[in-house]
């Protein structure tokens, strides 16, 4: 049985198509990373899976049931960490977890849940006094109540510090080991790399890639970048390097040339630069980061190039309220 299945799903809001003719399959027991920049339609897709919004066209099936008709039954077996939620300010963390336990009609010790998400110490404080990261942990705790068959985590790392991101990753792995299907969205690829069996990349409401990380890497190319630091990266030098056979792309970052090329042509690249009058101070190669891979898909560039700030894991909550995503 498939955990989540979308067939030909389109969602139109007044004046904007958030999701367009989307087919998506998440198999039972897998960890699926749902990627895409803010506003790509990730949250809208998740909202349709949870029946917060209904598709304009197409069918959404979750755990073998229709997402709209059997929504309550689906959510009984699903743990959800929604995006852009807020807590009940006046109720304590423990009350929140107790509410989840009561709602799911299960017999669980709330303290054990709070312990697992690292909120045991703060269980009796009002959730209104919690930090963003603590609220995120609290909602995760509520999602974990009752050993759900399916976990849906929408931007789970948002607001978490690096330790929180690590805890989140460990919990996802543990839940997957227990046999749960995990479906989570992120706009930071580095977060999904370590835990996902498969990733799907959404851009402007359409799935542009779906594969394992390795498969995506192969599909995009070998992704090696040669960095050559010269005395002056003039246009002549750039043109000379571009003319070398096997070079896909050349960018200048100050006096450093960023060259995407086949592995066998590196020496010819350096020779070409020197022939054009440049003095090569230094050169080395770097593998394309996953972030580059992600950007290559989401920005529609054919070949990934190395970025200075690739692989950033911290996440800004400020960018979460985009029109289509909200």
């Amino acid at each position, binding site marked *: 049985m498939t955990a989540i299945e979308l067939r030909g799903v389109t969602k139109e*809001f007044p004046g904007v198509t958030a999701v367009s003719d989307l087919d998506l399959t998440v198999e039972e027991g897998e960890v699926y990373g749902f990627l895409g920049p803010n506003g790509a339609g990730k949250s809208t897709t998740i*909202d349709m899976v*949870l029946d*917060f*919004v*209904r598709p304009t066209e197409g069918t959404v099936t979750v755990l073998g049931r229709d997402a709209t008709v059997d*929504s*309550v*039954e689906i*959510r*009984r077996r699903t743990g*959800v*960490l*929604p*995006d*852009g*939620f*807020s*807590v*009940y300010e*006046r*109720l304590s963390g423990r*009350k929140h977890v107790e*509410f*989840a336990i*009561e*709602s*799911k009609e299960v017999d669980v010790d709330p303290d054990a849940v709070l312990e697992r998400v690292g909120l045991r110490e703060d269980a009796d404080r009002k959730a209104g006094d919690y930090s963003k990261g603590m609220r995120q942990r609290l*909602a995760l705790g*509520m*999602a974990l109540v009752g050993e759900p068959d399916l976990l849906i985590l929408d931007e789970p790392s948002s607001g978490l510090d690096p330790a929180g991101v690590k805890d989140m990753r460990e919990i996802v792995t543990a839940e997957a080991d227990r046999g749960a299907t995990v479906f989570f969205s992120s706009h930071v690829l580095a977060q999904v790399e370590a835990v996902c069996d498969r990733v799907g990349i959404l851009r402007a409401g359409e799935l542009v890639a779906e594969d394992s990380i390795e498969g995506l890497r192969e599909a995009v190319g070998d992704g090696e970048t040669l960095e050559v630091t010269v005395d002056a990266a003039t246009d002549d030098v750039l043109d000379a390097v571009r003319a070398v056979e096997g070079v896909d792309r050349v960018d200048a970052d100050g006096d450093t040339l960023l060259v995407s090329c086949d592995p066998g042509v590196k020496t010819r690249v350096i020779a070409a630069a020197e022939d054009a009058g440049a003095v090569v101070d230094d050169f080395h190669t770097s593998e394309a980061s996953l972030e580059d891979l992600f950007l290559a898909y989401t920005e529609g560039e054919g070949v990934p190039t190395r970025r200075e700030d690739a692989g950033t894991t911290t996440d800004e909550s400020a960018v979460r309220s985009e029109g289509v995503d909200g």
Partner: protein
Amino acid sequence: MSLLAVANKDFQDTVRSRGMALLVALFSLLVAVFAYVVRPQGQADQFATELLLSAFVGPVLVTGLVPLVGVVVGYNAVSGERESGSLKLLLSLPHSRADVVFGKVLGRGAALALATFAGFLLPALVLIVVPVTFNAGSFLGYTVFAAALGVVFVAIAVGCSAAVATRQRALIAGIGVYALFVLLWGLFTGRVIGAFSGPVEALPVSMAQIRTFLDVANPTSGIEVLANGFLADQLFSGESANQQVSAVAMLVFWTLAPPLAGLLKFDRDDL
């Protein structure tokens, strides 16, 4: 049960709000002031409980203030959660949207009823202690009607809250309902009767019957009919028994129909 889980959560959330404490204090204060006004003078040691209730507490506090409080307690029940995003947390759990709407009517209605009892009880305790004859039975019985009226208005306001997307629109709708039932009802029904005086003659009902119906159609006057019957020791008996039964039916209608109508809209909405 899912509905009770929502009701319980909402009750706990509502009674912790600062507004609740304020409400209890306000009720206590007003009842105390009115009690002072009608306190026994000179030789008389008979405390006029019925006078206190029907002349002061009734018109000012119960039919004037309680409906307003009901609207305030109910208007952001669904729209507030929708605007803040806590509705996402709520609907991530296995609750239907019907559970949410009716759970909120129950939870907030219970919270308002509790506040009404607390607000009336504190002054009553003082009245019981002081050496005057105080009809505690009438007073506490009357509180039940006050609380019931509050619950009806909570239900209407929650219905409005479920039907619209924002807190502001829910508040406008709630205030509109309050204005209609509390401030403008006489004017409104007068117009209606005036406009239809011609056609009505053709129907097998009298003008007086229509007036009686319009009287109990409004929850505030419906409660008044019942409360006055109770104070006169004629609840569901005597001359106005039929009217009282109609009043109860209308109160039940106003408690169920607005949340249902709100739910119909809410159930179809994208959140």
